[in-house]
């Protein structure tokens, strides 16, 4: 499963796209705070496209990224995640939910001096793979896990 994903992610190079994104002012290289909301990235449907929209050229799987979350969420409206990166020079951390209408849920820029780890909560429409995407030293890395979403209750 991971091998396939890797192919998908690595198979598309996005240098041209990155150039476009930079010229459009969506992401300013070297700036810790991107001024404009990256609309294009929040409209992507899968990880590979998100990487492109964020100006990357594919991403490599990394064991240095850790997703801490329950494997089963009692309710998809609130699923807690902690994402931390041990990659040197971590610049940003993003959280993607593959089966959501838009894959990208949230993206965090990590300035120097801030620990490369964030905790937040996102909605999941259904059981899905969740990917943590990290930009470190100019390159993109990711790790993926599945989170199951259950339904409960009396009234069905």
């Amino acid at each position: 499963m991971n091998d396939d994903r890797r192919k998908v992610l690595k198979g598309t190079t996005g240098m041209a796209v990155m150039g476009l994104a930079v010229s459009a002012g969506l992401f300013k290289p070297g700036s810790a705070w991107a001024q404009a909301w990256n609309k294009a990235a929040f409209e992507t449907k899968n990880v590979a496209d998100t990487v492109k929209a964020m100006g990357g050229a594919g991403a490599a799987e990394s064991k240095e990224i850790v997703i801490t979350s329950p494997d089963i969420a009692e309710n998809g409206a609130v699923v807690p995640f902690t994402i931390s990166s041990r990659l040197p020079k971590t610049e940003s951390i993003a959280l993607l939910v593959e089966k959501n209408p838009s894959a990208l849920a949230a993206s965090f820029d990590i300035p120097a001096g801030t620990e490369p780890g964030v905790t937040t909560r996102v909605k999941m429409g259904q059981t899905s793979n969740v990917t943590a995407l990290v930009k470190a030293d100019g390159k993109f890395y990711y790790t993926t896990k599945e989170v199951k979403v259950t339904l409960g209750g009396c009234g069905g």
Partner: protein
Amino acid sequence: MKTKIIALSALAALVAGCATTPSDEEIAARSLAVMKAGFKERGQAKLDRLDQDNLQRTCSIYSGGNEMPKEVAARIEKEQLASIRYPADGKLLGDWKAGEKIAQSGRGGQYNDNPKAPSGANCYACHQLTKQEVSYGTIGPSLFNFAKVRGFGPDVQKYAWNKVFNSHAYAACSSMPRFGHRGILTEQQIKDVVALLMDPNSPVNK
């Protein structure tokens, strides 16, 4: 009318704060009056839902640590067994796939439910049925391998039908709704649920 008088006298006694504690009947009458005043009709749920039939009344009395005498239980089971009706065509088994959908659905009977839409049986709320569904309750026993354990023959089919139709026929004051007796499920729906339990191809028996 009589109830009302008892309720009022109980109330008067309580308000006066006199030493005699109200009897259980007085409290019961007072409670019913309080309930009737405290609930409002909404959607399909009318106030008559607070009124109890004999079974409900008896089961309420023998609860909360008040043990039911054996002869009362035997009488209830006999009465409830007698209430069970069977399909005119004599066939007790429908489509297990339709039964699985009914078993998953908890809709029906609530004031916010559409009274015209079919009700579910919500079997999974209380029972394990298949290996595929991990979100199941434990209010009732596991029904996994229901027929594989008990047999696929006509006697077990009839037992399954009776249980779904009126579970009190075998266990007085069971927690399970009387799906047939109270008209929660249609005859065809009961057939489908019975098929879910009885069909050799149903995931229940895998």
